[in-house]
């Protein structure tokens, strides 16, 4: 038996257990951005991409620095950010509270889940004229639109997260005689936090979309107004400056939530 083994080298068992385990590779994401932008730059420089199709990334950068130097950047950015923050805070805090109520009380669930399901698919942008009538053309209607848009996805994410809280932990709380309020605050809410935070990613993306829509309809300053103006003049450089600013806001918000997730959910396995 052993002679045979010596003659023919035994085959090594083939490894087949790899993959399906995402690992963080920070630089890859950045590299994709850089490569894409370089390709567009090269294409526009050589004329392969006509300047009616896409602006030169370098021109976009120049336009951005002009915007920054003229001080107009902050004039557009600050109202936009304050609308975004105030609107989403209203929508998200209402959404989280209603979601928790739905998760905890069967009557609230029976009453509100169909309502939320009916509200969710409505394109909130379609309601903007209505909001303008209700709340006026000024800031309030913009807050309302963003709040309403972030409210429904937050509710759905929150009550789903509350439903997924480990029932044995709640049983444990009851068996130690914890008060109802303590169980909600110390067991249900922290248990649901992971689901709530991942719902926030979606809510905030929706908030940015609605912000632009609201500003396109009636705002003197704001990223949306800036993009609308550039678009109607077919000023591609300025249009892209606006779009890039929105992307960056989205990225920063997402990074912000990621930071909170790492801070608050470090207990996860």
């Amino acid at each position, binding site marked *: 038996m052993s002679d045979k083994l010596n003659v023919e080298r035994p085959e090594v068992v083939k490894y087949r257990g790899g993959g399906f385990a995402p690992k963080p590779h920070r630089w890859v994401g950045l590299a994709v951005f850089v490569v894409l932008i370089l390709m567009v730059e090269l294409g526009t420089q050589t004329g392969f991409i006509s300047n009616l199709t896409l602006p030169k990334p370098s021109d976009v950068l120049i336009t951005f620095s002009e915007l920054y130097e003229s001080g107009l950047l902050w004039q557009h950015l600050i109202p936009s950010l304050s609308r975004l923050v105030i609107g989403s805070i209203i929508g998200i805090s209402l959404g989280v509270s209603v979601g928790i109520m739905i998760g905890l009380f069967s009557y609230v669930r029976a009453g509100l889940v169909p309502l939320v399901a009916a509200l969710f698919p409505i394109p909130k942008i379609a309601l903007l004229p209505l909001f303008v009538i209700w709340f006026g053309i000024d800031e309030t209607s913009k807050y309302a639109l963003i709040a309403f848009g972030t409210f429904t996805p937050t509710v759905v994410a929150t009550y789903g997260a509350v439903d997924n809280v480990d029932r*044995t*932990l709640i*049983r*444990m709380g*009851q*068996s*130690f*005689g*914890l*008060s109802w309020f*303590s169980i909600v605050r*110390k*067991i249900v809410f*922290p*248990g649901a936090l992971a689901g709530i935070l991942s719902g926030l990613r979606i809510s905030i993306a929706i908030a940015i979309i609605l912000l632009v829509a609201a500003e396109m309809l009636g705002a003197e300053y704001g990223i949306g107004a800036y993009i609308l103006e550039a678009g109607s003049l077919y000023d591609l450089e300025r249009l892209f400056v606006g779009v890039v600013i929105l992307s960056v806001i989205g990225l920063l918000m997402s990074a912000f939530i990621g930071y909170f997730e790492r801070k608050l*959910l470090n*207990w*996860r*396995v």
Partner: protein
Amino acid sequence: MDIQLSNICHSYGSVEVIKNISFNIESGKIVCIVGPSGCGKSTLLRFIGGLERPTSGEVLQLGAVPKDSLNPMTFVFQDFALLPWRTVGGNISLVLEDHGIRGAKANKIIDDVLSRTNLADFKNALPKQLSGGMKQRVAIARALAVNPAVMLLDEPLSALDSQTRELLIDDLVDLWSKKPFTAVYVTHNLEEAVRLGHSILVLSRRPGEIREVVTIDIPLKDRGYGNAELEKQRKYLWEIMRNEAKAADLELINV
């Protein structure tokens, strides 16, 4: 404080799961409940702890609840039920906070129960850092922190491997020998039952009735691993249970 079960019956819809169980749990003794799966032993424990209500019959507390007991009926669960976002110390503090015990007073209790369960060095660890056996020790420490009149252990060692189980049996014997406590211990493992039970309640298959009550007089400390007398008792229990378990295994689950 003694606990009396009087005529407990329970059914889910038309399915009778527990029938006419009456029994007394004496203070300072460990009662083990064994029986085939689905015989309602865990349900019975939840009745004793007030987490569920029987269809008829009642659980009575005889005598006054000890004054220093924060939570007279205290559970230890099979799956530990630790809050993963709280440290070992935080998990114990959780059950004290609602009684207004915080700060130095809470720390004193926490340190005391952690040292009794040999966990003193793990106060700031998160549950994810602990092995199964350690997690169950934390759950036992948490139960001790509220000074229970009766400990209700629901298959506490069933999620652990056999070596860890052996270690934890020794720990429980140790704890009891230092300071006897009253406990109801539900298990399907007859070895655990003969090692820890002063009396062993054998339930029949569904609907669960008391088949037999076996008492073992050997002191807990002398019930080492491989004790011949215990082995005899274990075999005897298995003889009683064997056919019940076989029949229970063949039943369709329709609860």
